[in-house]
């Protein structure tokens, strides 16, 4: 494939990274391919770029399929562009579990952003990840951050109830709902609604919008923290109490009609305000810490799994799995024995 040789020589790496830091779109695109295709190259890239990151405001956009995420991202991007921000957009769509192929169609809704050099759009396939993002998404965010994009809009795959990874990848999480997608009980279930910093009822010109808004507002008021709790990763209880007492962010429920840009000015205003709020209250750092923890843990898990693959012979693995299937040993014991093999052969 075309991009293969670029990383072969270290002067090539250097040149590419310098071009990324200078914000050259072609270099950014190439590097995104490399980090997406290879953990090794992702590591090389991120370790060089990391000192230049940390400036971007990462905004996650999630919600069920058809709620209007791509249209909303486009409308929000147009508004943020008018305010002068340079934007990176990462749009994740699902990969087929059968063929590994993917149809990445988010650009269909984003045609209004074409021709604007202040916007860089990248489609990403989820490649088997189940949390609503792709494995390489966080590395891709680092690349766009280092390339100087002020705000990074991260659109997840159409999310059901449990795809909450976006909350630990983003500073500000928007959960998009549309009218007519379930009764009141849906809104008090655990999961995706809990991660919202801003709740958006899109297609607000459709029947049932008032009902959806009311359901969401009720959900917020039923919460133990009266609508002020936060983020994907659960904070320690004392922190949460402190957050409520002094630094409460009121989660707004906003109405939008993305295709006519209705309500988008207010949404953009709240998005920018949320960043200011995080910075003013010290929660920005808390979220960065939670994000870092998540990321390091994920990499550690990957490494342990990789070690499992090299430390355990296929025959050893086969013997154990067969024994479990034949009810000779239980799955817990098998896992313990595999773990012992991993730890022994270091």
């Amino acid at each position: 494939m075309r991009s293969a040789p670029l990383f072969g020589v270290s002067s090539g790496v250097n040149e590419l990274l310098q071009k990324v830091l200078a914000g050259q779109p072609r270099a950014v695109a190439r590097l995104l391919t490399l980090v997406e295709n290879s953990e090794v190259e992702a590591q090389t890239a991120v370790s060089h770029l990391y000192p230049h990151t940390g400036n971007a405001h990462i905004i996650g956009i999630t919600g069920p399929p058809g709620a209007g995420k791509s249209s909303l991202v486009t409308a929000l991007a147009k508004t943020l562009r008018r305010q002068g921000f340079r934007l990176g957009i990462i749009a994740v769509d699902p990969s087929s579990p059968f063929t590994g192929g993917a149809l990445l169609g988010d650009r269909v809704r984003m045609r209004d952003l074409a021709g604007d050099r202040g916007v860089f759009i990248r489609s990403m396939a989820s490649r088997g990840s189940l949390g609503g993002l792709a494995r390489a998404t966080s590395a891709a965010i680092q690349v766009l951050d280092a390339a100087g994009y002020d705000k990074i809009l991260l659109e997840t795959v159409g999310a059901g109830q449990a795809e909450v990874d976006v909350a630990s990848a983003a500073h500000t999480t928007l959960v998009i709902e549309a009218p007519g997608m379930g009764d009141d009980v849906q809104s008090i279930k655990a999961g995706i609604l809990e991660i919202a910093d801003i709740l958006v009822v899109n297609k607000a010109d459709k029947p049932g919008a008032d009902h959806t808004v009311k359901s969401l507002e009720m959900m917020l008021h039923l919460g133990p923290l009266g609508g002020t709790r936060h983020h994907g990763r659960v904070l320690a209880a004392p922190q949460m109490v402190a957050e409520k007492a002094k630094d409460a962010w009121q989660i707004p429920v906003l109405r939008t009609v993305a295709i006519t840009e209705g309500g988008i000015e207010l949404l953009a205003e709240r998005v920018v305000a949320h960043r200011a709020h995080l910075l003013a209250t010290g929660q920005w750092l808390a979220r960065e810490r939670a994000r870092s923890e998540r990321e390091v843990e994920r990499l550690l898990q990957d490494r342990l799994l990789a070690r499992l693959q090299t430390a355990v012979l296929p025959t050893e693995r086969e013997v154990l799995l067969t024994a479990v299937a034949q009810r000779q040993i239980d799955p817990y014991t098998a896992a313990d024995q595999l773990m012992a093999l991993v730890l022994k052969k270091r």
Partner: protein
Amino acid sequence: MTAEERKPRILIAKPGLDGHDRGAKVIARALRDAGMEVIYTGLRQTPEMVVEAALQEDVDAIGLSILSGAHNTLIPRIMTLLAENDMSDVPVFLGGIIPPEDAEAMKALGVAGVFGPGASIDEISTFIWGVIRGE
């Protein structure tokens, strides 16, 4: 899922003003089923939009569907823009209605393949695997 993973990334776009995108969708779907990652941009793409999307998405090939007869205008412009962006190495293939005499002209401009009505999905998929492997 392994640490090293390469998937062909293919842009499927429909430049020009006719609204018949069924063919492009059929191809996009077929390439998806062949294990490729297809970036589908939809209708009414300008040459500038096509090249910008190809650049940002770092695609391995560009597939264009044109039924309007505008290929003699659109394709030279797209090939020029690709060259200006140092992207002449990205293979371009065409589908739709391209008369045989024009197909030769398209190839002379650097188009890697032209597929008219009757071309099979297998044929197109094999062709794409071939060009992105540099065969």
